């Protein structure tokens, strides 16, 4: 529907008429949206509106669900991701993902967790330096530098989530997708994650799905509002929260949804 006319950052991901199905259920209808580079785009909407499905289409994780299908155009830096012959596995190294519940690998140490993306993909290089860099970027280095060999279960929920972020950063993605990254965390841990997102946007393009409108307002530059599988409105976050153009957006944002 609407394209945010964000002038300066050029779009990193351009979605054009994306449709998605789970078996026979048509879950995304003609979604057209630009995600600007090096900025944070929040995706909001009520439960079941398709925002997580949309996010998972961006790194083709939707394909893992049996019976899932997507059609349309999805361009990353101009390259069509849904075209035949595009390697989904390779794509996921460019477009990383962080999930709702922190999911560090339990049988690996903290160090090994961060390095897992490198090791499992056979990427060489100075793993020591890369792990430290990623832990610093994830604002976790100071808290774990003395116990890199320890188990992730010894970390708090917020720390585990930052560990997962560090792990995702290790393979040097260009885009970071976050599916409600703070919804399982307490307010202080949430604030740390939001602060981290603010730092990360200087180097990565970030798309974050959140059911918490205030979080979207705090954290993002652009906001896209989904309802029943359709993109209702997308625009600068300030505009969406002070003066949205579409009545339905207004109703959602002010809490008038029945």
């Amino acid at each position: 529907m609407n394209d945010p006319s964000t002038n300066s950052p050029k779009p990193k991901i351009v979605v054009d008429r994306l449709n998605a199905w789970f078996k026979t259920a048509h879950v995304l209808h003609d979604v057209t949206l630009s995600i600007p580079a090096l900025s944070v785009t929040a995706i909001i909407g009520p439960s079941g509106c398709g925002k997580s499905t949309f996010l998972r289409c961006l790194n083709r994780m939707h394909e893992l669900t049996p019976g899932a299908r997507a059609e349309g155009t999805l361009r990353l830096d101009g390259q069509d991701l849904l075209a035949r012959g595009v390697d989904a596995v390779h794509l996921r190294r460019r477009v990383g993902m962080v999930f709702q519940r922190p999911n560090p690998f339990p049988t690996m140490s903290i160090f090994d967790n961060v390095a897992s993306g490198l090791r499992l993909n056979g990427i060489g290089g100075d793993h020591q330096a890369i792990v430290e860099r990623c832990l610093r970027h994830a604002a976790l280095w100071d808290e774990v530098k003395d116990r890199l060999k320890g188990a992730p279960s010894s970390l708090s929920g917020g720390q585990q989530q930052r560990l997962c972020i560090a792990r995702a950063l290790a393979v040097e993605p260009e885009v970071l997708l976050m599916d409600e990254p703070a919804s399982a965390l307490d307010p202080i841990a949430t604030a740390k994650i939001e602060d981290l997102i603010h730092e990360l946007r200087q180097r990565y393009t970030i798309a974050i799905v959140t059911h918490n409108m205030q979080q979207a307002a705090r954290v993002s530059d652009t906001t896209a509002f989904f309802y029943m599988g359709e993109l209702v409105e997308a625009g600068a976050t300030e505009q969406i929260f002070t003066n949205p153009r579409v009545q339905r957006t207004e109703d959602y944002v002010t809490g008038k949804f029945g």
Partner: protein
Amino acid sequence: MMRLHLRNAVNVAATIACGATVLIAMAPLASVLWLVVSRGAAGLSLDFFTHLPTPVGEPGGGVGNAIAGTAYLVGLACLFGLPVGIGAGVYLAERGDGRLGHAIRFTAEVLSGVPSIVIGIVAYGLLVVPMRRFSALAGGIALAILMVPMLARTTEELVRLVPRSLREASLALGVHEWKTSLSVVLRTALGGIVTAVLLAISRAAGETAPLLFTALNNQYWNAKPDQPTASLTVQIYNYAISPYEDWHQKAWTAALVLLLLVGSLNLAARLFTRGRLRDAR
């Protein structure tokens, strides 16, 4: 007040009844242990573990070859059974919801219900007859067939227990699906699988019937797969049905050795699990 007393009395009576049933249930186990230990201990010696069996009447001798034979047979069984069993388990967990998966699962269920002697006969027909000889290989494969269903079912359950989120985390890093299955999923389930393997081994080590027509027995050391091999279980059988008193004694002692072997494998499995649980906390 009366109700309270009555309830207390019922409580105590029920507790006593439960305790009694536990004792009754433990009685056979206790009697087995008692019998085996008391009768078998007499024959225990270092020689018993290391020497070959002697003809009847001659003093000394041992079951060294039988112990080695059991180890050899179980080793062969693992060689064939572990990859198939664990592999099938992983397949069933990851992709087993289709027709093929259901077929495999059904087969495993049926197979686990087949009496072990029947499996022995099957192995006889499949291997002993064409090879025209009894062999350790046939025995190993018979034991493998026994281990596979158990391993497959347990592995499937353990792998299914691995949360989907770990799989997704690995895939989101751009790791191939097969690599995710092996390096992440399997690795996470490894502890449970090791325990399952130990238990499968201890079961295989205690089987007699499948070995009767496949590995037969051997009075000497054997390291060749195409020759018959001794095993503790068959040796116990042979000693026990013989009319000789000193062989009966040897049977008890060999039984004690087998019990110790199986018991320590079980214990190892338990300790391994507890150790992992402690680490996970």
